[in-house]
Every structure is written in structure tokens, then in C-alpha cells.
């Protein structure tokens, strides 16, 4: 309740504080329903009960132009999966240093991927969801500042973004969620485009700390290992201020109504039990006026760092918990998606997508179907 009041006050402040300025209000929404295709299947939060809540969302964005090249943008977003609790997805101010150079500061989207900035705005792409094998770090935003530079290099449009900041919140660790802090994030993303072709690369580094109760608490695994005289092993596993990196490259072709998109990413957290993560997808679609069918293939390949427990005798009582934990982050999964986008309205698109995920590590296959409408207003 207090939260809601605060929110209302904040909105009022944003709106009234800028009473002399031009205010743009835009919004987007996705209303989606889906289900897994068999009672044993579960994927992306769906089971075999049809759910309208799981992937639906709605957002309002308020942008106030304060004049003299200064503007403030706040985006309020509620997800069905969070019981529609509304949160500030972003809140930042922008200052145009020149026509080509802009500084944004505040809560920003981290530019890991090609679609990072607008992954919630389904209307902006053809799929029902961005490829989860690749877009799976489990966090999207940082608090910090970015410098965004656009220019033309010969025939190419170039957009170059530098970003610094930190993240404090949840992050994915295998299929679980950890309390994460990522400090000193520094990154660069560069996109070059020309006449329907574009190429992108991104590289970010940071210092990662994950807190997981069963591991980090005074009675957790690391404390037990230290008590056994295996403090060095605990150090190799724990995730405390570890050097981390993310690298991604991608391309996009939009030519003669063919749309091809691909991204390859690699993420690492050194000196920890987090597996090295390699992922890619490729998607091919064709636009027939208002109807765009597509197919895509995704691969996620997370390699467990088995070398961590290589020196531990299998007979040791700590072998099972240590190897179990390290191996739990091994994951090889291939997914195939088939779907269609239909622009039935100037501001809305109907979409349907079938996904089959083949998890080689867990030896299971899961299928899910989702239909819905993405709109902007």
C-alpha cells in the first residue's frame, strides 16, 4: 500500500515538476496466453494449465522534455508473473551533448544483446519472446550512466554505446535465482548498419558476487569445506568479487522481405562454480505483407567446471555435494521455434509461437505454445 502511494507521489512529482515542459506518454502491452503441450512438460514458466498471466505485461513510459537538451524518462512496468506489481523498469535523465552524443544516467537497460533495450516491447520484433537460450542472464538493468554516440561512417550508420554502473538484485544461477551484486560494470556495444544489413558486438566486464543461503551462510557448504581444511576448494567455488565477462556478436539482414537474425554470446564468471555459458540462435522469417512466418533454432551450452573437483577423491564425503553443485550447472539444450506475426491493426500484432526444447543434459523434451497480442500506444 505504501509502495503504491509512493509510486503515485513519484508519478505526480514527475508530471507536475515538469508542468512547463512537453510530456510524451507512450505505452506498450503484451497479452499472451500459453501452455505446455503435455502434463510432464514445463518451460518458460508454463505448465499444462493455460495461463494468461505468465508472459503478459503492460507498461507506461513518461518522457518529459525539460528543454535545453535535457529530458527525463521513467518507465513503469507490471508483469503478470509478478502479480502485476508495477515497478520502475527504468528511470533516467538524458542530456544531449551534441546532436550525435547523448548521456543517459539512472536506471538503464544493460546493452548485452541486440534486443536488450526493447525485449519487453514485443511489438518491435516478430517472435513471441526473445530467444531464451541467449537472453538468459536473469537480469537486464543496471544503475549507472551511458554515453550514446550515433554517426555515419561512409555508407554505414554507426551507434556506439559506452556504459558504466552496477547491479544489485536477482540473477539466474542455473535454473535457480541468486541474490547478486555486480560491481564496476564497464561495457561497450557497437552496431553498424547499412541498407537492411546490420552487425553488432558487445563486450562487458564486471565483478560478480552471488549470495546463496545454502552455500554462503555460516552453516553452508563453504563453511563446512573450510572446517574440513578445504578452504582453498571453497575459494575456487564461491562467487565473491569474481572477474566476469560477457561477449556477444550478432547480425541482422532485412532485405527483400526476408528477415534473418543471429546472435552468439559467451559469459564467464572466473574462479567460481558458475559454468561457462555459450549460446546462440538463428532466426529466418519472411514478410508476406502483413503476415510474417518464421523459424528459429537456439542452442544453450553451459559447461560445468569439473576441474574444480578433479583433485577430490570420490570416496571423500565432500565429493558428492561439491560435484553435485558444480555439475548442476551443466546444461545443453537445443530449441526450435516456429511462429507467425500478423499485423492485423496499425498498433497491434497478433502472434503465435510453438517451441520445442530438447534438454540433452536432463534428457527431457518440453513443448510450449503461446498466442497473444503485442501493442504499442
Amino acid at each position, binding site marked *: 500500500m505504501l509502495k503504491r502511494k509512493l509510486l503515485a507521489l513519484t508519478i505526480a512529482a514527475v508530471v507536475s515538476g515538469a508542468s512547463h515542459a512537453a510530456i510524451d506518454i507512450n505505452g506498450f502491452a503484451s497479452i499472451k496466453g500459453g501452455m505446455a503441450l503435455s502434463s510432464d512438460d514445463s518451460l518458460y514458466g508454463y505448465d499444462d494449465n493455460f495461463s494468461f498471466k505468465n508472459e503478459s505485461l503492460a507498461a507506461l513510459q513518461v518522457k518529459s522534455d525539460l528543454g535545453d537538451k535535457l529530458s527525463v524518462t521513467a518507465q513503469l512496468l507490471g508483469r503478470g508473473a509478478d502479480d502485476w506489481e508495477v515497478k520502475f523498469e527504468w528511470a533516467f535523465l538524458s542530456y544531449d551533448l551534441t*546532436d550525435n552524443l547523448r548521456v543517459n544516467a539512472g536506471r538503464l537497460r544493460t546493452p548485452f544483446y541486440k534486443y536488450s533495450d526493447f525485449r519487453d516491447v514485443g511489438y518491435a520484433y516478430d517472435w513471441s519472446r526473445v530467444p531464451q537460450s541467449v537472453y538468459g542472464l536473469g537480469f537486464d538493468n543496471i544503475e549507472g550512466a551511458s554515453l550514446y554516440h550515433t554517426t*555515419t561512417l561512409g555508407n554505414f550508420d554507426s551507434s556506439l554505446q559506452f556504459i558504466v554502473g552496477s547491479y544489485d538484485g536477482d540473477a539466474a544461477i542455473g535454473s535457480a535465482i541468486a541474490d547478486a551484486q555486480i560491481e564496476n560494470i564497464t561495457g561497450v556495444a557497437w552496431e553498424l548498419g547499412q541498407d537492411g544489413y546490420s552487425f553488432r558486438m558487445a563486450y562487458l566486464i564486471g565483478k560478480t558476487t552471488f549470495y546463496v543461503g545454502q552455500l554462503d551462510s555460516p552453516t553452508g557448504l563453504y563453511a563446512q569445506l573450510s572446517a574440513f581444511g578445504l578452504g582453498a576448494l571453497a575459494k575456487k567455488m564461491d562467487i565473491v568479487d569474481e572477474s566476469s565477462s560477457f561477449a556477444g556478436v550478432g547480425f541482422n539482414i532485412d532485405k527483400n522481405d526476408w528477415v534473418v537474425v543471429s546472435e552468439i554470446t559467451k559469459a564467464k564468471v572466473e574462479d567460481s562454480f558458475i559454468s561457462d555459458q555459450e549460446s546462440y540462435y538463428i532466426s529466418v522469417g519472411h514478410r508476406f505483407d502483413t503476415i510474417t512466418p518464421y523459424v528459429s533454432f537456439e542452442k544453450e551450452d553451459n559447461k560445468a567446471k569439473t576441474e574444480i573437483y578433479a583433485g577430490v577423491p570420490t570416496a571423500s564425503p565432500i565429493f558428492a555435494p561439491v560435484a553435485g553443485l558444480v555439475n548442476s550447472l551443466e546444461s545443453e539444450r537445443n530449441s526450435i521455434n516456429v511462429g507467425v506475426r500478423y*499485423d492485423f491493426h496499425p498498433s497491434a500484432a497478433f502472434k503465435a509461437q510453438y517451441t520445442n526444447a530438447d534438454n540433452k543434459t536432463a534428457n527431457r523434451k518440453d513443448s510450449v505454445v503461446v498466442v497473444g497480442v503485442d501493442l504499442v500506444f
Partner: protein
Amino acid sequence: MLKKLILIPALTLSFMAFANVAVIVHPSNAAALSQDDINKIFTGRAKSFTDGKAAEPVNLAEAVAVRADFDQKALGRSSSQMKAYWSKLVFTGKGTPPKELASEQEVLDAVAKNPAAIGYVSSGAVTGSVKVALTLN
């Protein structure tokens, strides 16, 4: 008979007016504009005319028929694709789409008043208060 003869060019004219899009600027604007320049201005990738002066594009609302022609001929995309393009920029704080006006008359008025403005109307709607920078067939 004479009446019919007059009717034929009139019909041709009105057809032409529907098919051709005139990109218009203020009469004082001397900048040369190619279709590519217009594309860059209307997609937010260029903020000024070729002579370096600031450009303020004004768009037509989707309800006006010539908008779809302009999107296709000048920008090479459907109105839906343009909306998807702008939603990428709007919801990332990276750009703001051109202001949309409800009628060709409003575009003519806005361009006639503002030396920085650039807009478009169907060729038949052009008046002497604006300058045609380029006609898109």
C-alpha cells in the same frame, strides 16, 4: 464533347495527385534533398539539412492516405514497420518520432510558418506558401 475532354485531364491529375508525394519545406530553405536525406531525417538518423541547418520533420497521421505512400516511397517500409522501428527508439530513450499532424492542411501551415520544418503532402495539395524539395513517384 468538350466537357468530356476537360474531364480526362482532370481525372489524370487527380490520380497523379494521389500517387505522388511532394516533400515540402519552407520557401526560404535552399538545401538540396535526396530521397536518402529525407529518409535519414524522417527516421531520426539526421537532425539537420544538408546545409547544416536544424531540421524539424512533421509527419502525417496514419489515417491520412498519403502517409502510407510516403512510408513506402521515402522510407521503404510499411507503416507497421515504421511503428516497430520507432517503438525500438522511443522505449529506449534513443529517439522521438516526428510530430504527427492530422491533415495535409496542418502540414502545409506548419511548414509555411517554420523555416526548419520539413513535411510532405500529396502533390495536388501543394500551395504557393511552401517549396517542393522533392517529388516521390
